[in-house]
């Protein structure tokens, strides 16, 4: 058996015989399994709830009776974002971004949140997710087990005879690191189970395996850091204090500072300020409801010429539907400019925040984790874009029905009497323009590429720490 393996086995034997180590591991495992189970239940419930609401919303829209198509434009429709399979592990931004959109003509509504009642299932601790436990609390466990790896040898004066009998410092550190890495693999078992479950829910093997790999690198960074400090400092109390300070700085303080600095250096325009600017621009556009608006004069003329008639009443299409479609297209173009501008600004801020992963691996793993899980800002934007495309599609479908299936005469006379009112409507089969909304997340390879920079940061952290361990191992003294 190699010396490295012998040292690793001995380290495990020490942990197995340490009541403190066993107690800490047991508590961690209980918390992790509980949180994983509750998060899975919550996501499962939300997934079913959203699917149910989506089907309900589709059915409600389709079952509307014959009516004026523009009433259906304003009747609107709800779409829901189904949670990603890996959201059972890392819900990411899902809890702070909306999952539901009310789609209607002439407006781009903000996404709204899912029911907050689900937070009660963790006794107010719904913010605690398996991912957060791995990102914040698993390093603590590694510190508890790893802080004494070398210092314990020093304090028990076993380091000197070990080195004195020809064992090199590098071999000793390699054995200790191997023990910690085996422990990290053990810690990853619940994550692997979550990843396997996500495969059953349609997640790709690439994304699930990459997520496990990312956490393997992240926890290895902490193992390396614990071992490095343990091999440099001579007193266990000093090692523990230093590692506790590192944990506090890297997992709590620096990420919070990074968020504040990113918000300050890449500020977002306030929602009210942005909407006022947008409304000013929108007001300058034509009103699709007003067929006599002067901006449509040229459209009138070109339509009459195209159809070879002198009056709008003689057109084969209902000019009110045509103009509604044109106005919606123009309005949507303007709304999209503002939406894209806002999303670009949000992405700039998110990218800036992600860059701080060079300073703290906790931030790098958080970004990589939610990117691979499909619960990051980019996926929220994908939902908004897909929902907007869906909204525009069904509104224009209704405008087409307005133009092609409802006569202009019936349309303008609809308020004259009951009979006219009944004539100014189209068949309910037109409501089928609202198709089933299916949110399409990015493919696994796209997510992996997006997480590339954060993964590079984690690998760089591990490479630097490995280099420092090799250097320290060559100079290890009792």
């Amino acid at each position: 058996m190699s010396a490295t393996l012998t040292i690793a086995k001995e380290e495990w034997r020490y942990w197995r015989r340490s009541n403190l180590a066993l107690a800490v591991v047991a508590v961690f495992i209980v918390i992790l399994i509980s949180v994983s189970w509750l998060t899975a239940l919550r996501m499962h419930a939300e997934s079913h709830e959203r699917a149910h609401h989506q089907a309900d919303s589709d059915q409600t829209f389709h079952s509307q009776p014959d009516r004026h198509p523009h009433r259906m434009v304003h009747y609107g429709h709800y779409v829901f974002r189904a949670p990603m399979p890996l959201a059972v592990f890392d819900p990411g931004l899902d809890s702070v971004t909306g999952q539901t959109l009310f789609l209607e003509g002439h407006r781009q509504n903000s996404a709204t949140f899912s029911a907050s009642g689900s937070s009660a299932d963790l006794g107010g601790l719904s913010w605690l997710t398996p991912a957060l436990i791995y990102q914040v609390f698993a390093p603590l466990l590694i510190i508890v087990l790893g802080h004494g790896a070398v210092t314990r040898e020093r304090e028990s004066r076993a380091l000197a005879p070990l080195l004195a009998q020809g064992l090199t410092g590098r071999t000793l550190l390699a054995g200790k690191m191997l023990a910690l890495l085996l422990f990290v693999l053990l810690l990853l078992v619940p994550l692997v189970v979550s990843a396997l479950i996500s495969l059953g829910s349609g997640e790709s093997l690439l994304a699930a395996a990459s997520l496990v790999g990312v956490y393997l690198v992240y926890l290895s960074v902490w193992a390396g850091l614990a071992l490095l400090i343990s091999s440099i400092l001579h007193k266990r109390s000093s090692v523990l204090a230093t590692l506790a300070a590192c944990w506090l700085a890297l997992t709590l303080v620096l990420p919070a500072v990074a968020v504040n600095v990113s918000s300050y250096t890449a500020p977002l325009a306030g929602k009210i300020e942005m909407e006022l600017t947008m409304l000013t621009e929108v007001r300058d556009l034509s009103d699709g409801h007003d067929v006599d608006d002067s901006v449509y004069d040229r459209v009138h003329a070109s339509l009459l010429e195209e159809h070879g008639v002198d009056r709008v009443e003689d057109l084969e299409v209902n000019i009110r539907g045509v103009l509604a479609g044109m106005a919606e297209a123009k309005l949507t173009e303007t709304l999209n400019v503002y939406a894209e501008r806002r999303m670009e600004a949000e992405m700039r801020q998110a990218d800036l925040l992600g860059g701080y992963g060079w300073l703290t691996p906790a931030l790098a793993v958080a970004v990589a984790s939610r990117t691979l899980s499909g619960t990051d800002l980019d996926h929220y934007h994908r939902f908004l874009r897909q929902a907007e495309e869906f909204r525009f599609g069904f509104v224009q479908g209704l405008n087409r029905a307005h133009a092609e299936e409802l006569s202009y005469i019936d349309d303008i006379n609809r308020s004259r009497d009951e009979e006219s009112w009944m004539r100014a409507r189209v068949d309910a089969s037109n409501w089928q323009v609202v198709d089933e909304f299916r949110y399409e997340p990015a493919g696994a390879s796209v997510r992996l590429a997006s997480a590339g920079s954060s993964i590079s940061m984690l690998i760089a952290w591990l490479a630097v720490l490995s280099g420092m361990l090799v250097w320290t191992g060559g100079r290890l003294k009792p």
Partner: protein
Amino acid sequence: MKTDSSAKLQADQLHIYRSGKEVLSGISFTVEGSEVYALLGGNGAGKSTTLLSFLGFLAPSGGSLSVDGVDVGTDLKAVREAIAYLPESASLYEHLNAYENLRYFLQLAGVPDDKAAIEAALDRVSLDPESRGRKLKDYSKGMRQKVAIALAILRDTDILLLDEPTSGLDPNAIDEFHDLVRGLADSGKTILMVTHDVYGACQVADRIGLLRGGKLVGEFSAPEGGRIETETVHRAFSNRTTRKEQAA
């Protein structure tokens, strides 16, 4: 460098600095094969520093060290493989029993696991068979010291470096330990021990080097078939002669 080809351990004009302070100021001595050499000195005299230098843990700023003819600075691996080192207060694992401790250290030293040899070594150091399966946290200091010596026996190195080996032991344990050390030397082992125990050094050592303030201020050899006279060494150790000289 002057190398005495018969010397197992040799320090020649050794200078060592620790934290900017000169701890050893040009000491020279040799330890021959099958010899017990005791470096005697008070606290801070540089005794442990000398041992750590032979192990390559401290680099000399001047002079040289050799182990079995090999310069410590040139082939540290060979030097360490030739030495068994017992630090002050036996350094073993409290959560392991005697067998587990020995097996672990021997595995790392590349010595084959031989149950009979382990039992024989523990018999040789007279460790009570009933206590061998107990964890070392329940051992007395003397019992731990016996396990550490058993390890040295099992590693079968020619040279043993012992740092304050009798510190904290009761008189019976000290006597037992001295018998053990003498037996090892008689079986061909070379032993360099550092101690501040004048009586113990005189009981067991063939030669004693007196270290004071980082300098070797005297050497005493045992007469053929006899022991070094305790009173002479004690006087030199407590510097009485020097005081008399100063008074004169």
